[in-house]
């Protein structure tokens, strides 16, 4: 099943066209095309080495594609920009491992992520305005960490760190949220909370989730893209994906057999 060729609509926020990346002769991403609209919740699944993280790296400017186009919004070519510029454009990323600043408080973590001032000297004179404070409070309640605002981030539980990271993403006011394995290592309850959080966020953001946990992906009830050997194997709703013979063969079958 080839992804249906989509004509660009106004709500397309991100598209990749014919992207290829080679590491030492190994094609990590092979002539891949992907379209994401805003708002949307999209899950990207695939076995290890399918190219999921590389895909994220390409979008955020960590890895440069050998060929192909990566376009944000209507016409911004991301392959020409560096990481910082891409972030400031409105693409936020949550890494696989929660990397919050463990010596900083929860509040300070959010404050650092606050969109806006990124220059050296303006940060020397920086004063937190009341509207920025309100935004931090708002995000704190979205991610459910109001009671932990003064704690050092290093003291938080694993799940709380993941939410704090999502909160930091939100502080950057991005259009696109790239979220790498949000529920790895989470308890059942934390996973449920995260699913609700992501669903809520997908109402006004483009949320792209990379995940291994099939139950979690199912609970998100979103459009799923299956990657395999750097190519898109299938795309569609979870129920459609599950019926796809090739997907079963390379991935889902294996996982279901485990379960």
């Amino acid at each position: 099943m080839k992804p249906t060729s989509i004509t660009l609509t106004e709500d397309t926020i991100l598209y990749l066209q014919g992207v290829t990346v080679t590491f030492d002769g190994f094609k990590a991403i092979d002539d891949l095309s992907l379209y994401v609209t805003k708002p949307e919740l999209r899950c990207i699944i695939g076995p290890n080495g399918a190219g999921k993280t590389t895909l994220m790296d390409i979008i955020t400017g960590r890895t440069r594609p050998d060929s192909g186009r990566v376009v944000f919004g209507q016409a911004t070519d991301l392959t020409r920009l560096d990481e910082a510029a891409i972030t400031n454009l409105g693409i936020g990323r949550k890494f696989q491992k929660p990397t919050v600043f463990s010596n900083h408080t929860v509040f300070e973590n959010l404050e650092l992520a606050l969109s806006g001032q990124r220059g050296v000297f303006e940060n020397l004179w920086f004063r937190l305005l009341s509207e920025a404070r309100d935004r931090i409070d708002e995000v704190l309640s979205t991610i459910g960490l109001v009671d932990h605002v003064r704690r050092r981030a290093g003291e938080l539980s694993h799940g709380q760190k993941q939410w704090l990271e999502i909160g930091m993403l939100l502080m950057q006011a991005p259009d696109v949220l790239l979220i790498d394995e949000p529920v790895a290592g989470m308890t059942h309850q934390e996973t449920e909370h995260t699913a609700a959080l992501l669903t809520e966020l997908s109402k006004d953001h483009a949320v792209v989730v990379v995940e291994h946990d099939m139950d979690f992906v199912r609970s998100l009830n979103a459009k799923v893209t299956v990657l395999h050997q750097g190519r898109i194997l299938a795309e569609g709703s979870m129920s459609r994906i599950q019926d796809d013979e090739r997907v079963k063969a390379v991935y889902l079958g294996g996982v279901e057999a485990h379960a």
Partner: protein
Amino acid sequence: MLLSDDRAGIGFLLLLGILAVVIPVGNLAVPNDSVFHVPTYAVALSGKFICYALLALALDLVWGYLGILSLGHGAFFALGGYGMGMYLMRQIGERGVYGHPVLPDFMVFLDWQELPWYWYGFDVFPFAALMILLVPGLLAFGFGWLAFRSRVTGVYLSIMTQALTYALMLAFFRNDMGFGGNNGLTDFKSLLGFDLQAPGTRNGLFVASVIALAGGYVVCRWIVRSRLGRIVMAIRDSESRVRSLGYRDERFKLFVFVVSAVLAGVAGALYVPQVGIINPSEFGPINSIEIVIWVAVGGRGTLYGAAYGAVLVNYAKSYLTVAYPEVWLFVLGGLFVGVTVFLPRGLMGLLNDIRERFGVRGGVDGHVEHPPERGRDGLRDVAQGRPQ
């Protein structure tokens, strides 16, 4: 307020204020036979320690807060020192051994006919003062710009800073560099018209050093307490994460590195008139490593800890090198190993642990609010050659 939640910092500044009064009064006003009399050599020695403390403070700013272990901060100190030394040489005028009105003695001795162009202007104090700030700052800017942009970090960066100071030492040893070769610059007579040997001048220099240290502390404190400071500490803890938030980390590193180099240069400039000489050995790699030990002993990431460490280690050094000259290097080596293994957060960390054990909460008034993580990019990493 800048210092409102910094009790230890206020204590540090108060102590400096007391020193700035007690030492000059003890030297100038208390009669020689009184037990409270401070001998003139002690004034000069204290001034030297205060300059070292400022140098340690500068290093702590980059090591404790930015996570860059500079093994070349002696270079910025020495450059500031040479800047002051050049001014002092020009001040000698006709009072030199050869009595040449323009050329310093060593140039006459080397048969030079005229002053090299880069000595122009150093007879004017404001120009010399500007150079004292500018030259270390520009060197740090150039070096940092190249290193940070290429994302050189950890032990590799440390080695490069060490190479920087070593290269400068070799350069300054050469006679044709025009800085007096291995003899350096010395035989200074006066500063701003004041006789350098006069007790009044010595006390004035001491007080100026104390003011510079206090000012340096306030500047550093202001930087680390700003949002820029929080960004810098975040870079120390997780550089790539800061980049992924959209900050250009290399610019922040560059800013802090340059500020630190300028402070080190000021320390060097105040040091030279008090010790009466500047020569290329100040660029020696060992010197720069000693600075690291001062900061490690005091406890990095507190600012004043570095200053206390510098004074403490140097006091021990000046005592031991006189009383037991053969043991000093063993003590230094022992400190290096001992602090790394047993006191990763230095004496300030130890004090803090003791206070917490006895129930004083809130970590000595919040100054350890963002301590560097134990062992991270610390001495141990360097000792083990572990890159970040």
